[in-house]
């Protein structure tokens, strides 16, 4: 029952925990008392995360700054990388394979698949790797460990936002305007981040103990790009396979993302979106639970 406070709304809980400490009527000298036992204290966990909120930002900022230091082209890499992939996929799937695109320029179809895919896969891989890449912190300083995978998300999100520049340029070029659905885009991106972070948390814990996942994840991501509708529309698949296909959580994410940008209603397949929502909720809850259960041992097993 370590995680029962998960179900309690966070803010009132925090206020309740803060109250005795900021009350001036009590002992002015009152110092916070920390109790350490064999389990990480669950009572003050989220309060502790709150206290370290600046660290989340600092770690995210570090990742961003370090990433492009000493690169000649700098932030332009964020555009160049997806651009290259975009050109190759458009050529192979659009021209060579000649797959249908519902009248949408194929290059836009690919980009609107590539962006959510990149978001999901980088959030997932970064979160999975985060404990290992920050092992020097884990073994030397205390802070709620969940800060590490959470802060690793920032870089993927920023990269994705930059890629919208590319998207905007291409849409202008083809004279396309997004409809009202574009307003739902932040929610789709949030969904992608949560789903990826959820499993990322689980893999991060496993990764700390079993380095096999370091080999496994890039490989899985390579396969994933083809079993997800990145370079083709979901409607390419035969109807009878679609329900099975919907079990890939990324399908719902990519479909919704495309719908928000390109507004093609027939690209949407409701079961896959429902499954993705359920998947994100379940992995997030399970991810936090599993992460917290193993959090205390992480420094010992690394």
């Amino acid at each position, binding site marked *: 029952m370590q995680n029962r406070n998960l179900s309690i709304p966070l803010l009132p809980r925090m206020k309740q925990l803060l109250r005795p400490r900021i009350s001036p009527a009590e002992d002015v000298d009152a110092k916070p008392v920390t109790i*350490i036992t*064999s389990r990480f204290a669950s009572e003050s966990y989220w309060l502790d995360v709150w206290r370290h909120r600046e660290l989340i930002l*600092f770690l995210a900022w570090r990742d961003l700054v370090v990433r492009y230091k000493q690169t000649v082209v700098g932030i332009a890499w964020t555009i160049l990388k997806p651009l290259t992939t975009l050109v190759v996929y458009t050529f192979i799937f659009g021209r060579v394979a000649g797959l249908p695109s519902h009248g949408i320029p194929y290059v836009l179809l690919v980009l609107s698949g590539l962006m959510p895919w990149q978001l999901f896969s980088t959030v997932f891989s970064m979160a999975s790797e985060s404990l290992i890449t920050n092992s020097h912190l884990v073994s030397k300083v205390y802070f709620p460990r969940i800060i590490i995978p959470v802060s690793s998300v920032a870089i993927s999100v920023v990269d994705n936002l930059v890629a919208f520049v590319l998207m905007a340029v291409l849409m202008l070029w083809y004279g396309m305007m997004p409809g009202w659905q574009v307003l739902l885009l932040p929610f789709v991106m949030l969904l992608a981040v949560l789903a990826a972070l959820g499993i990322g948390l689980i893999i991060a814990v496993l990764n700390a103990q079993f380095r096999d996942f370091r080999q496994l994840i890039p490989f899985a991501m390579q396969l994933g790009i083809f079993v997800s509708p990145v370079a083709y529309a979901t409607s390419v698949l035969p109807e009878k396979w679609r329900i099975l296909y919907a079990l890939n959580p990324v399908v719902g994410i990519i479909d919704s993302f495309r719908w928000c940008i390109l507004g093609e209603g027939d690209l949407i397949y409701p079961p896959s979106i429902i499954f993705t929502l359920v998947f994100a909720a379940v992995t997030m809850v399970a991810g936090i639970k599993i992460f917290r259960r193993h959090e205390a041992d992480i420094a010992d097993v690394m």
Partner: protein
Amino acid sequence: MSYAIRTEGLGKRYSINRGGDTGRSLRDLLGSLVRPKASQPKIIEPDSEPVIDAREAPSRELWALKDVGFDIAEGERVGIIGANGAGKSTLLKILSRVTTPTEGRIEIRGKVASLLEVGTGFHPDLTGKENIFLNGAILGMSAREIRRKFDQIVDFSGVGNFIDTPVKHYSSGMYVRLAFAVSAWLDPDILIVDEVLAVGDAAFQKKCAARMKELTKEGRTVLFVSHSMSSVNQMCQKALYLENGRVVAFKSVEEATVEYQRDVIEVTESQPWHRSAFSVPDPNIEIYSERSGEVICLGGSIETEDGVCTAHLPIERPIHVKLRYRVLKDLSFPLAPNFHFYDEGGARVFISMPPESSPSAAGEYCVTCIVSPFELNNGRFYVNPAMSSFSQQPPVHFSAYEALRFEVMEEPGVDARRHGWERPLPGVSRPRLPWLIERLPGSGLS
């Protein structure tokens, strides 16, 4: 006085079921699922290497700490001492919450900052300024706090104009100075330090030590792990002596460090430590010699004024240190016998030589050096008896390394100059110096 840290029945168990520390392989996990029991019994020779293989010894356990309990009062400075593997680092890791105890309970009152290393989280590509902020945040400072202390940190580190240069271009000294500077301006109630003072050049180390003292003056509780008994003695009031994960002693720093040093010597030496007499040849005594065929060492002893040979000497009695030697032939140059006194930590206390040269004519001689009462404080001492002729090159006839080892003992009440102070009086010497006490004229109250 209220407590700062209170621990009860603290224990930490590690299971050693894998080789290195590079992380487990999934194969081990899968393997243990597929094969729940060891598949084949293996015949192990009685004196073969211990089994470390994970599959053969699935549940080897090691208690890095066991039944550790102590209370530290607010404002106390406590050194943690012990051999490698005694559990010092594990204790620090638990107290700083990097890892959790397997059993037991700790209560900590106040904000804790732990410095298990300097520059945690420093990134080589970031500038000095960026790293100050990052490191500060990792150590638990708020951005506002760091901004407020920024100038002091930069000043203290002395990196000056390089503050906007990536730290990878720093010299290692600059890097460490900057790293320590951030930690030096932390503002915790309880400070946990793991031997980070051993960084930088001598001048910077002095600065660090001064800053640490300053920090502790402000009523902070300090826990300090070190292998250097002199820095523990300097910094701390009490010491927690750990051995094999258990508390051996938790008392005044003087007593605890002495106890620790004695135990170390007893472990490393097979024979008894004390040696009140020796005669050459002795396989346990190493004799250094630069000249041969002129003077040889025969032996020596430590005696009381009554001629009783003992290695336990009362502090209030004179100590007679004797050296016997043979001059093999008539020599044309003077001889200077000398005794080198060392304290338990190996620091030289003094060298003593007679006022005149000893005879150069062939024959056997015995010289005695009389150490006055209280000249040596209570504690253990070594003597190297030696013979030299400083007019010659090279000068040393012989020097018998740690040939005599004795202990100066103090019974309660023998030193009237304690004036009622009962705890140890630190120092290697307690000389009876003359004092003058005079009443200032015109100070009488009328």
